[in-house]
């Protein structure tokens, strides 16, 4: 081999070893699994990222419990006026490439101002490599969420993500993707809502919904109200009600619903008709044996019990000008383009007549009469 051939071979091999352009082996990337955004003093945004460490990765890979000494992840945060700048500051603290292509969870602090939330959403929308199917949640404290003590078997955040991706595992299938928020924000007549995750000494508390008016969080629903809203949205998977029915205690579980909403305008007044077909399993009942007639009466009792509660939730949403999931959007898009401005449609919505039809059926009585 002559010297120039050797030289050429070395020249060809050099970039092969060093990598080039977009080629960056995965071990040289700091893979962010979750990131959070919270307000910071002076109207700045604090970005926090969670990156698994080598120990974390190997324990995740082998599935074995991590050794006591090793830290599973490292959490880095930085503040700046924009989320992008904050992430750049984080990059400054890292020796590897901050890689956002596999972000699984985006946590937004519920204390973010409307302007900051808008800025954040704009940033996330523009970000090319970001996975749009990443879950987005709201939380009162991003710091607490990220610093939760790991239980056996890996990163706690991954448990949270696992819960979201498991269809029907949680009470309400309230997972929201970044995508859902991104498309709901500009749509006239649509309001953003997100799961509201708090941290308890034992782990995460999920099961609540936070609704936004434009970009401001306005109401964190209680677990029961969240379940009711879930019924209205048709996303409740394991709803539960119990009440006393003529001195007998009644419990119904796995409440699920098929819901529809029909907006229409009559005499310049907006009407919203909600139809809910709820079904559930008879769970506890200390009354006389269940006959066909009694089953019918239970059905109607439950419907009568649910309907006013649902209406209450709807009224409160109406008062706050929040209309999640395309209640008004089709009407505005197809027939009332003039309502496009939020002030206009909200004014109409606040004066709207709400009609709720609830139909309940027990689909399963269990193994006894």
């Amino acid at each position, binding site marked *: 081999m002559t010297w120039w051939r050797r030289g050429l071979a070395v020249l060809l091999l050099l970039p092969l070893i060093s990598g080039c*352009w*977009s080629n960056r082996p995965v071990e040289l990337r700091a893979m962010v699994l979750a990131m959070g955004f919270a307000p910071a003093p002076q109207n700045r945004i604090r970005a926090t990222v969670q990156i698994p460490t080598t120990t974390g990765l190997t324990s995740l890979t082998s599935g074995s419990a991590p050794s006591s000494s090793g830290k599973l992840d490292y959490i880095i945060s930085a503040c700046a006026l924009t989320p992008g700048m904050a992430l750049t500051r984080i990059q400054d603290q890292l020796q590897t490439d901050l890689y956002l292509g596999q972000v699984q969870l985006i946590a937004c602090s519920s204390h973010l101002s409307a302007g900051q939330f808008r800025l954040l959403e704009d940033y996330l929308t523009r970000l090319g490599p970001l*996975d749009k*199917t990443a879950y987005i949640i709201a939380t009162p404290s991003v710091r607490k969420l990220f610093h939760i003590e790991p239980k056996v078997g890996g990163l706690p955040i991954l448990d949270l993500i696992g819960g979201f991706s498991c269809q029907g595992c949680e009470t309400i299938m309230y997972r929201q993707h970044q*995508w859902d928020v991104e498309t709901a924000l500009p749509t*006239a007549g649509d309001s953003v809502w997100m799961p509201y995750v708090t941290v308890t000494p034992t782990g995460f508390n999920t099961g609540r919904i936070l609704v936004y008016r434009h970009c401001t969080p306005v109401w964190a629903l209680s677990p029961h109200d969240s379940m009711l809203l879930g019924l209205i949205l048709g996303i409740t998977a394991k709803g539960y009600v119990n009440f006393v029915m003529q001195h007998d205690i009644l419990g119904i579980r796995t409440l699920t619903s098929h819901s529809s909403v029909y907006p229409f305008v009559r005499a310049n007044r907006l009407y919203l008709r909600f139809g809910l077909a709820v079904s559930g399993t008879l769970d506890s009942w200390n009354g006389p044996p269940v006959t066909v007639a009694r089953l019918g009466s239970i059905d109607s009792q439950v419907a009568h019990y649910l309907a006013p509660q649902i209406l209450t939730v709807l009224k409160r949403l109406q008062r706050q000008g929040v209309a999640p999931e395309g209640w008004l*959007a*089709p009407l505005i898009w*197809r027939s009332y383009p003039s309502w496009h401005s939020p002030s206009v449609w909200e004014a109409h919505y606040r004066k709207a007549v709400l009609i709720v039809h609830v139909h309940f059926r027990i689909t399963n009585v269990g193994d006894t009469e």
Partner: protein
Amino acid sequence: MVASYLGVGIFQFPRELATFGGPDACWSYLLLTTGYFLLIYLFLKIAAIDPEHSFGHLTSDLLTPLLGFSIRWFRIGVHLLLAVVVVANFGQVLRTYFLMGTPQWALEGALVGTALYAAWYGTAVLGRTLETGFVPTLLASLLIGLLVIGRMRFAWAILPSSHIAVRPTLLGAYHSAYLFIGFEMLVQLYRHVRVDQRRAAVRWALSLYSATAAFFAFGFVLVMGTEGPAALMQAQWPPVSALRLANLRGFFINKLGLLVVVVWGLFTMGFVAVRFWCLSHDLTETGDGRVSSTYYHLALVATALTTLLISQLLSNVVVLVHLFQVWGLPIILGYLLAMPMLILPTVWLRNRFRPRLAPSPPH
């Protein structure tokens, strides 16, 4: 044939349709596709007038040599513009979603190089390549598209409005007219079809056009349904955004939608290759439509280099779309409408007074 129009709009459609057509987007699309069907039919009729000679020769002969000459160079400009637009656009899609660190010239150079190679061996090879590649890619796109259907939150936006407003319908159709704008080269292609297969080719052209229109209609339903009109209008590349939701769990590659977007590079490549082919033919062919192989290859290389150089100047998709919508679209559309109106009556008049050129109808 499909390559001549599939490629220019695939990354943008149906943004303009939703923006300008509003709730009448469906009607706009119907108007658009019907209009193009007629235009394609008319252009095929033009091609059938004198299939033995080049289009430039035909225009010089029918209209005046000066006009023929201008039309020839105008067409060269049009094809170059289309190639540049498509190359630059795809380069930016790649830089946004896939290869952030790779320079634009490398991405676009690779695309242009591939297109150059595809056009190098001429009509038959280009045809075979596209034939082999298009069917699987289209099928894969449809299949992946079906995966997204589960995420259609905005299905209500697809339904046409009950009352048709004329202005938005027309505007939507006009601004989306880029979708099939590349079809014009069918005139040139017609001559390369064997004489005994020309009738069949015309039928094929029209039915393939219809199939493409149906494909885009499916795309419209999909993108509109998943993104909703408002987010769609804001998105730079709506179909890409929609396909990014296609996420198959438990598979080796789970973001299949993103994979499809890269595979659409084939459509882009096909479109650009067809443009190159067309441009090189326009540049080199003599009156009787012959093309010398050496000149063809020289023209091909020159065309590819020019396309690559110009596309480097368009570094921003906003500028690109603006330029195309404000300047490119009206000019090209004007030309497409003017040609049948000029040529067909002239032929008719000429036949009436001097029955020499008999236009053989395509059907």
